[in-house]
């Protein structure tokens, strides 16, 4: 190869990365800080937009992975979220509407060692790009897809999105939308994503923790970030995300722990038949009666149940709903190439060209 970017000496193809394992040790060696991940481009989102916080938490989280910034790539589609790569001082590719997962898939095939983030929105990921999200997730492409969900089209100035609630009045739906919304996490689960989580733009510590866990996952990670669009859909999640109410209206998921919530940790989720119910602890109801979160469950039932819970019927779950291990797409693709090489030997072009029946003209 001619552009030996990283000196591992492999011939005949795309540069292979040094494949630095994610580790605190490497993070200590690299000594990167948030500032290293801030690009020289002026950020141009509306003042007060939830995207600022998501960008800041992303930049803060990056040093912890111990990955050199040249091995990190942010790929986005179209929409307000699509601008994020310009603000990250890593490799970045602002692509076309809905197609970021396809480019990310090709990039991972070409260079499996890169850490690839896909930045998208509810319109980009679930409307025009729904097909690609489905297939990148079921293939377990090793990408971390962060979907900013503001339940509105922001960049095109306020039309209904696939996550807008039924009856939502917008510029494009003055009488209210008649389209039933999709639940992003249910969709991700049906698409066989191997990591599924939710966080909130303003819950900075939780968002950092969620991004960090997604980054450490090998395989397709789907992270929904509830993000406020203060221009076209202000307060979409206010009812349960505001500081004063969030403990009582959101359920912080912790692996292996019973599902307890409330400012006074006095409420929980219990299973009744096939349905969850909110119960008050005490009066004969104890922690032992509550559902225990298991993000590693192979079957999707618990995660699916959680993905359907929404305020005001239920507290809105945040955290990791699902985290399972499956071979990644790039691993499987590379394994087939290596296996073919082991079986047939490294391809010999001269032999290939004369394969089959030939004849000689003197």
């Amino acid at each position, binding site marked *: 190869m001619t552009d030996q970017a990283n000196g591992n000496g492999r011939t005949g193809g*795309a540069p292979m990365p040094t494949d630095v394992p994610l580790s605190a040790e490497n993070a200590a060696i690299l000594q990167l800080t948030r500032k290293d991940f801030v690009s020289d481009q002026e950020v141009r989102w509306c003042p007060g937009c939830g995207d600022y916080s998501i960008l800041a938490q992303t930049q803060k989280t990056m040093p912890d992975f111990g990955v050199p910034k*040249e091995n990190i790539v942010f790929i986005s589609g179209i929409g307000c979220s699509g601008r994020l790569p310009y603000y990250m001082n890593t490799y*970045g590719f602002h692509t076309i509407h809905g197609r970021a997962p*396809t480019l990310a898939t*090709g990039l991972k095939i070409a260079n499996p060692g890169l850490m690839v983030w896909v930045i998208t929105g509810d319109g980009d990921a679930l409307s025009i790009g729904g097909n690609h999200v489905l297939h990148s997730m079921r293939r377990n492409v090793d990408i971390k897809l962060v979907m900013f969900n503001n339940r509105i089209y922001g960049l095109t100035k306020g039309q209904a999105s696939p996550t807008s609630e039924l009856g939502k009045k917008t510029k494009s739906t003055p009488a209210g939308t008649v389209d039933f919304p999709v639940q992003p996490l249910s969709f991700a689960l049906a698409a066989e994503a191997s990591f599924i989580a939710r966080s909130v733009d303003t819950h900075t510590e939780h968002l950092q923790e969620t991004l960090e866990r997604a980054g450490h996952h090998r395989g397709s990670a789907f992270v929904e970030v509830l993000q406020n669009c203060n221009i076209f859909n202000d307060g979409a999640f206010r009812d349960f995300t505001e500081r004063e109410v969030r403990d009582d209206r959101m359920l912080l998921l912790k692996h292996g722990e019973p599902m307890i919530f409330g400012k006074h940790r006095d409420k929980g989720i219990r299973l009744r038949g096939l349905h969850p119910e909110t119960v008050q602890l005490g009066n004969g109801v104890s922690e032992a009666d509550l559902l225990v979160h298991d993000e590693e469950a192979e079957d999707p039932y618990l995660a699916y149940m959680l993905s359907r819970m929404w305020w005001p019927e239920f507290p809105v779950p945040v955290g990791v709903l699902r985290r399972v291990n499956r071979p990644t797409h790039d691993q499987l693709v590379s394994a087939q*190439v290596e296996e073919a090489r082991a079986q047939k030997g490294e391809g010999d072009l001269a032999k290939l*060209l004369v394969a089959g029946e030939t004849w000689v003209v*003197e």
Partner: protein
Amino acid sequence: MTTEAAPHKDVQVRELERVTIRFAGDSGDGMQLTGTQFTRTAAVFGNDISTLPDFPAEIRAPAGSLPGVSGFQISFSSEEIHTPGDAPDVLVAMNPAALRTNIGDLPAGGALIVNSDAFTANNLKKAGYESNPLADGSLKQYTVFEVPITTLNARSVEGLEMGAKQVDLTKNFFALGLMFWLYGRTMDPTLRWIEERFKAKPVIAEANARALKAGYAFGETTEMFHTKYHVAPAKLEPGTYRNITGNEATALGFVTASRLARRELVYGSYPITPASDILHSLATYKNFGVRTFQAEDEIAAIGSAIGAAYGGAMGLTASSGPGIALKSEALNLAVMVELPLVVVDVQRAGPSTGMPTKTEQADLLMAMFGRNSDSPVPIVAPATPAECFDYAIEAWRLALKYMTPVIYLSDAFLATGAEPWRVPSPDDLPDISVGGHTDRATFQPYSRNPQTLARPWAVPGTPGLEHRIGGLEKADVTGNVSYDPDNHHRMQTLRADKVAGIAADIPPLQVYGPDQGDLLVLGWGSSYGAIRTAVERLQAEGHSIAHAQLRYLNPFPRNTGDVLRAFERVLVPEVNLGQLSLLLRARFLIDVVGLNRVRGRPFRISEIRNAAEAVLAGRSIEDVPLPSEDGTTFSASGQGLA
């Protein structure tokens, strides 16, 4: 029954220069296989060959029906040939439907071999015959050989444990064996193929081998045939040859390009006729580091190729017209971010789903202009199946050197047609490798090589070159997002100049024949063979005529205008309504004459010849009657897009 059975009759051997055979039967009858086996055998014998597979889009249309007929035409010769032949000398019809759909192409006096067992009342009805053509005298202008193939074949496989249906499936080998005898060909390559192909099914292997030998022996022993034919090997250029289809050559060319560029190939593709065989071939070359990805749709296919290119690999995608239409937005992204990419369009008849298995050359303007804004993309178009190899490499040379997507226009005729290919030595092929950018001090994402105007290829994983690209307009040099009016004008011009500049780096347009005169016949793509042959014949008759074939459609070779102006008239045959004509008129202000026929078929030599003769005689080609299959005539419209 053996092939060694002593002939007990007088058989003459006639020497022929060229023979064209068409095999026709039900799409489940194995006609493509029969044709392919005859082709291999003729090729290995040393004939020049050219083939035209012609099959329906339906995998198995109802048995015996007209839409279910599948055909395979092969022309083999002791002289160099360029086309699969205008009309067959011999038609092998396995049932009435095959007879009915093909007999119109067989010239009077032509040989017709039919499976007489298939001419049942039921089959005749399905084919729309009111009376049996074998009995009603309607075929008296042909030399008809009625062979009860089904019965004879069933007898040959008696004693093998097979159902009646399986027995019936072997009858194409009987027909093939008979043709091998008739043209004095060895059965060995096909016997070897049968053994290999049916290794796991010894009974089927035995049955097919017996059927083949029985057909051969039938020719030898029956009183029906008194003449065998011999077509001597062709005097081709010295070298090692193999038989190859356009799609095979395309796939091999890409693997070779990957070696010559010393980068791995990532092929993103979605199945579509007639391009899928490229995916099938490339998927078997994994030990060459080829990574194939069957995407969820056409857009994901090109998206993955662009992503791979961004990562420093050779990102490749292929499709046919409908798929290329879906890829156009992503292709424009590649134009904007200036990454190397090759997009193959194996053209088929449209619009929309059109006629998926039939050929057409009507995606030229889509390749040129089918994207939003001014969006220049170089276009190459191989002219023969074997040339597909060379232009696969050439497409990559341009893509890598100029950091640009390149469109490679093939078509169904090239893709499935076959011809002998003189296999090159890898040592004789060009080094097309380019370096990626690694130097921090000089790095600007949109700085340009002063000669090629290519921007640097700085791939993720390269320390210190972290940068952002995307579909938004780029500031010259820095590549930052820019809405500056003057910058946009400059960038549009730079992108156009970069592609236009490729004209200095490609061979001039070659003229076959005199470099000036009365008439130039100018084609592009797969019309090469028919044009070349028609022009050679007219040259032999003393006409002032020449042929040129464009392999580069954007930019045109730098001498194109001069070549055109050196002739009184220019005739442009295309299997579309005048797309190249439109470009030539716009670019060179020359009023070329278009010969435009869109029948899902390649041109015949006679069509080109008749039109050229008309133009030479000063007649309008609209008055030239062109024969159609059903015997009717219609005029050649020359001005479809004018």
